[in-house]
């Protein structure tokens, strides 16, 4: 009797693959603090030395505001372009078989692997008036290098893998039966794409574009070599931070950086919330 009692009172133990919830969560939090939170606290501390009015004055400086505009516009154009072109690229990689598919697949990651400064210098050389592309474009009267257009090119180059790599796995998992069901019901190819495929891809596509956008907001290395960096015209916000740093005005640099940080964070949170709702509907609540 006593043995059955003690057996009944023993708690069932759930074994996990990684032992020690306390240990694993603790070390995760420790590293997040060390690598992510601490530097961000430093950033906030540095701006905290300024008063509100001074903060406001720094971040609404005319030249800085111009840089916001240039950065945001360039990032919007670059990420929308990436959304379209990245979707196409992912589609080609998933739906078609062709020689060299593996190589193309690997090349998509190149912008991640390449040092951004190398990318910037390469783009600047290519698009300069005497470069390969620059010569041709000059005949059409289009200048890319050292103009805001160059910023767009550099931004889309460095952030296209975000779109391809978020859309690709979702596209791979898309059941061909849903498309076939659409066709047997008489839908045109375009209807099938717009009404069946695209809604399934939306969450991934929007996430990819948003990641591409936030990455573009912060891009520095690739952009400054090709942008020309003319005040009020082709200066990006990251460069403004760099300029303030070179003036040893650390609080001002931090203040501008905090604006970029907050904008990126808000966007990512918003996307996450929207995506969670959308996916809930797809996979049940």
């Amino acid at each position, binding site marked *: 009797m006593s043995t059955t009692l003690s057996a009944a009172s023993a708690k069932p133990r759930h074994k996990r693959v990684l032992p020690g919830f306390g240990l694993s969560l603790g070390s995760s939090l420790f590293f997040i603090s060390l690598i992510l939170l601490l530097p961000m606290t430093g950033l906030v501390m540095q701006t905290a030395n300024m008063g509100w009015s001074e903060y406001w004055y720094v971040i609404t400086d005319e030249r800085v505001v111009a840089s916001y505009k240039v950065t945001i516009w360039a990032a919007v154009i670059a990420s929308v372009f990436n959304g379209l072109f990245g979707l196409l690229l992912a589609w080609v990689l998933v739906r078609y078989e062709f020689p060299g598919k593996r190589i193309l697949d690997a090349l998509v990651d190149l912008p991640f692997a390449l040092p951004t400064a190398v990318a910037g210098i390469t783009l600047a050389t290519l698009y300069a008036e005497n470069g390969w592309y620059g010569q041709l474009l000059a005949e059409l009267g289009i200048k890319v290098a050292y103009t805001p257009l160059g910023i767009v090119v550099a931004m889309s180059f460095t952030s296209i893998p975000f779109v391809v790599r978020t859309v690709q796995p979702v596209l791979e998992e898309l059941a061909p*039966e*849903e498309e*076939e069901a659409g066709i*047997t*019901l008489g839908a045109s190819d375009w*209807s099938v794409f717009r*009404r069946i495929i695209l809604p399934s891809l939306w969450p991934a596509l929007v996430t990819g574009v948003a990641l591409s956008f936030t990455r573009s907001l912060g891009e520095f290395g690739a952009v400054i070599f090709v942008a020309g960096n003319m005040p009020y015209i082709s200066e990006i916000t990251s460069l403004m931070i760099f300029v303030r740093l070179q003036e040893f005005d650390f609080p001002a640099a931090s203040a501008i950086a905090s604006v970029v940080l907050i904008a990126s964070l808000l966007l990512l949170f918003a996307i996450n919330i929207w995506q969670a709702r959308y996916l809930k*509907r797809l*996979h049940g609540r």
Partner: protein
Amino acid sequence: MSIRLENISKTFGQFQALSPLSLNIDEGEMIGLLGPSGSGKTTLLRIIAGLEGADSGRIQFGERDVTNLHVRDRHVGFVFQNYALFRHMTVADNVAFGLEVMDAKQRPNKAEIQQRVKHLLEMVQLGHLANRYPSQLSGGQKQRIALARALATKPDVLLLDEPFGALDAKVRKELRRWLRSLHDEIGFTSVFVTHDQEEALELSDRVVVMSNGHIEQVDEPAQLYAQPNSRFVFDFLGNVNVFDGKLEQSRLNNEQAWISAPSSDVPLNNGQLYIRSHELALHTDATAVANLPLRVVAVNPIGPEVRVELEPHEWQSEQIWEADLSHADYARNPVKRGEIVFAEPKNAYFFREGSQQAPEQVSWDSASQPVKAK
């Protein structure tokens, strides 16, 4: 609408999925394509739908030649094995899809579409789920929505790929009856694919048995059961015991076991006797008809009968034998696991060795008595 298939063939790379085959399906008929996986039944269904192109042959719907017609113009309803409901749309939007994507000229107006959808959902008895999403439905509900969606455009032909494959036994039976009554009510021509012989026999007007890309037999269920025309159909239609015998001294021998010549005057030869499990009687000793010693492996009372699994004793058979006894017969001779019993066939089908022809039906005099009484 009737369907006419002529010399349809299909290869995937080196694999011959369908050897040239022809089939006529009458208007309003319900046809079951039955076969094991890899027999080409799903390929045939997809070719009828137009989701797959045939390498050769012709397909006609009624008088209309649809061989080179695109799926979307064939006007078929297709129900997929995994339902393939549009996950991001509500149930009502799913059902309305086929109507929404019609050309502006043919498309009913919004109110009409709503009315049709409502009617269809009531027909499948799921009107109360109109605003749910597919992920909130059970398997049986999804299946019915898939059917309502396929019927929304009033197709000429309804094609179903393993329609009840993913459902549990009870729901499956219920849906089967429901589909049959719906079919009788509306009268569409339908073709469905299944690997479940019970489903094929219960649901179809005619069953098409397929193997390795061939049609083995096309017949009404009762006829198919009474006269299977090949070893394959026999094996596939359910439990059958095979006795592989050599003709010696006017009886069929297999090592220590033998079965005497049947009473019907069929000239015997080497060959196989196919004996259905309910055509076997079990005795404690050999009889004048047969000496088939078997060891009892298991005794399972299943519903109206007792199924006895038997293992050949001092002779060879590729498979375990089964005898289905009535409870009364079992009570008369309650065999136990491990015992040796002697089986006696009442009726059987005889396949001659080396012959591809249909089997001959044979039977033995039931008057025969055990050689020595117990």
